[in-house]
């Protein structure tokens, strides 16, 4: 019998589903960072607002990367519904703590997808994921380094102003 399934899509149903989950996760991250950007702006933390706006754009790009991959492989990418985005945050520091947690969660999820791909012998998707895993090193590094600024500089006095100024200089370079 002719294999109509493979004629339509090179992605298995399982992998298509988990990639669609990841699309949703990246879109959620994008919305979350946009919300953080607005909060920082409201608090007078100009650079942090800019930082999160940029992060938000990047997450949307990640989402679209997954989105096009699913469609290009014959699957059906689903435009995600995003809910439960907080509009208020406890503190400047907690915003970055949440960022790091978010990024660690994303890394974990991409690891899980890679695991499923390896088991299913879908090495095309597996190699597609390598770029994201590499990207996550940077994302986690930057969030962690910024968080350390809170200890190094301290929030008292003009500390928050100084942290806001310094966080733009945090960047990751592969050695």
């Amino acid at each position, binding site marked *: *019998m*002719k*294999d*109509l*399934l*493979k*004629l*339509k*899509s090179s992605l298995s*149903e399982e992998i298509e589903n988990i990639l669609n989950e990841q699309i949703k996760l990246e879109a959620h991250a994008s919305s979350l960072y946009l919300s953080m950007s607005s909060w920082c702006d409201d608090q007078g933390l100009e650079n942090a607002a800019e930082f999160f706006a940029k992060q938000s754009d990047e997450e949307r790009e990640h989402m679209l990367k997954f989105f096009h991959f699913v469609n290009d492989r014959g699957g*059906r990418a689903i435009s995600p519904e995003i809910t439960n985005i907080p509009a208020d945050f406890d503190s400047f520091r907690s915003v970055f703590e949440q960022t790091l947690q978010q990024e660690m969660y994303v890394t974990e999820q991409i690891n899980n997808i890679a695991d499923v791909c390896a088991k299913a012998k879908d090495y095309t998707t597996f190699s597609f994921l390598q770029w994201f895993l590499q990207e996550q090193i940077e994302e986690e590094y930057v969030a962690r380094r910024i968080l350390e600024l809170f200890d190094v500089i301290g929030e008292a006095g003009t500390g928050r102003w100084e942290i806001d100024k310094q966080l733009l200089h945090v960047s990751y370079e592969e050695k």
Partner: protein
Amino acid sequence: MINSGFFYVLPYVYLDSFLIICYICDSSNRLGTQMFCKNVKLEDVFESEYGAVRQCNNKNCYWLYFNGTQTKFTVRDLFLFKNRVDQINIEKMLTDSSVSCDFEIIMPFRTERCFVLSVCDIVRLKELLKGAKFMIELNSEIKSCLNRGLYIVNN
């Protein structure tokens, strides 16, 4: 039996329940996209006492035979239809005494069919679609195993 007919469903609010009026009209001149794959030998995918799913290798589609109707689906649409049927809350249908809960209506996109399903139909359709999906996936799996086998033999 309803043969290649269409249901037209007009919900009327009657007392506190829906009275579903279905009437079947002759649709032979409106079949259009539903036109049966003629002169092509269809391959059996899965058959049960209550229906069958067959594959047309000419148009790369599936035909669902159920309750005297034939409906054409692409592979994706067939699976979407299966998901839709699987999502029906049978328990609610059985426990809710209102008339609107006696039947579930599904009008799959890209078909001209309207399925009006009783609990019994749903159970039968679920079984049929589950079997069909399993066989479609099994066939695909066997094909790739054979391809892999060929590669190993040739190398």
